[in-house]
């Protein structure tokens, strides 16, 4: 896996802009880059799962319920 130019910035981004604990600065760049990639992958997988679930959920509901639930979901 190619190491990004600033793996510590990549890790901060993966953590949603939060500064990682101080001790992480002592790790090799490749280790930090891999950690950032693992977090980013997990976030992406969750966002994809959430996006895919919405429409599918509605299709599983009986029609009368669907309208009310759509309102609650803001759709």
């Amino acid at each position: 896996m190619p190491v990004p130019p600033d793996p510590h910035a990549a890790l901060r981004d993966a953590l949603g802009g939060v500064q990682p604990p101080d001790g992480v600065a002592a790790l090799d760049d490749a280790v930090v880059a891999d950690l950032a990639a693992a977090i980013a992958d997990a976030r992406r997988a969750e966002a994809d799962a959430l996006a895919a679930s919405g429409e599918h959920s509605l299709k599983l509901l009986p029609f009368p319920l669907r309208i009310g639930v759509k309102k609650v979901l803001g759709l």
Partner: protein
Amino acid sequence: MSAALESRAEVAKLAGLLSVPVERFDALAELSPATLRELREQVTDVLYDSDVGALKRAAAASRHIPPAISATVAQKAFGPLLCARISGLVDTRTAVAVAGRLPTAFLADVSVAMDPRRASDVIGALPADGVIEVAAELARRGEHVTMGRFVGHLDDATIVGCFAVLSDADMLEAGFVMEDKDRLDTIIGLLPAGRLQGIITAAHEDGLWPEALDLFTHVSPARRGELGDVALGQDDAHVEAMLEAVQREDLWDTLADVAATMGPESRRRLRDAAGDRVPAHLRAALGD
């Protein structure tokens, strides 16, 4: 626990949270336990808070849907990952009603992805029988990190029920990664007669001496002495395997703490078996 062992347990929890093999994060074990714990909490927060708006709306919608239909939606549309994220946002009564209609294997999948701290009320309200079935399924899968994260949210009666479906090795491995180990002494006190012996045997047969020694350090001095006496009451091969693990993991300080609470016969046996391997500064603690 030694810092190295504690870091190793934390790395296992972080890997579990991100669904990656623990070996991928081997290099992180050089970080302190406190650093790893803070990092894991940051990762948990970012995973749980990323889409919290959409998840809250989905949780709100669940109040308008009969539990049987919610259970179908949970399995066929949401899947275990999103159910885990929503679990702490749904009201407790709804969550329990839906969980009661989900198969054990699915609930085990949800448990792996859950942060139990965010759904402690739901976990505490689940019927013990269902929790025990999930514990058995998690043990079958080797999901000890997940089990260790949940223990602190279960009452004593449910924990005792889980003992019956967990092997001695399962208990050692889950205890090693358990959150809030202050409760370990109480939990060990709930074990039925004979299980302490089984745990020591598992430490030997499954190569879990570091996990066993970690357990020793998180119990009261009286219990530590009891465990130490059981360990030193084993045959020579068991005692030697324990000493090799102590040497390999540099756990002499831990062993000295255990030795200080053991009976004189056990201390004598330990001193004789360890011989010159004991670091000079610990010989007094072993009775030299």
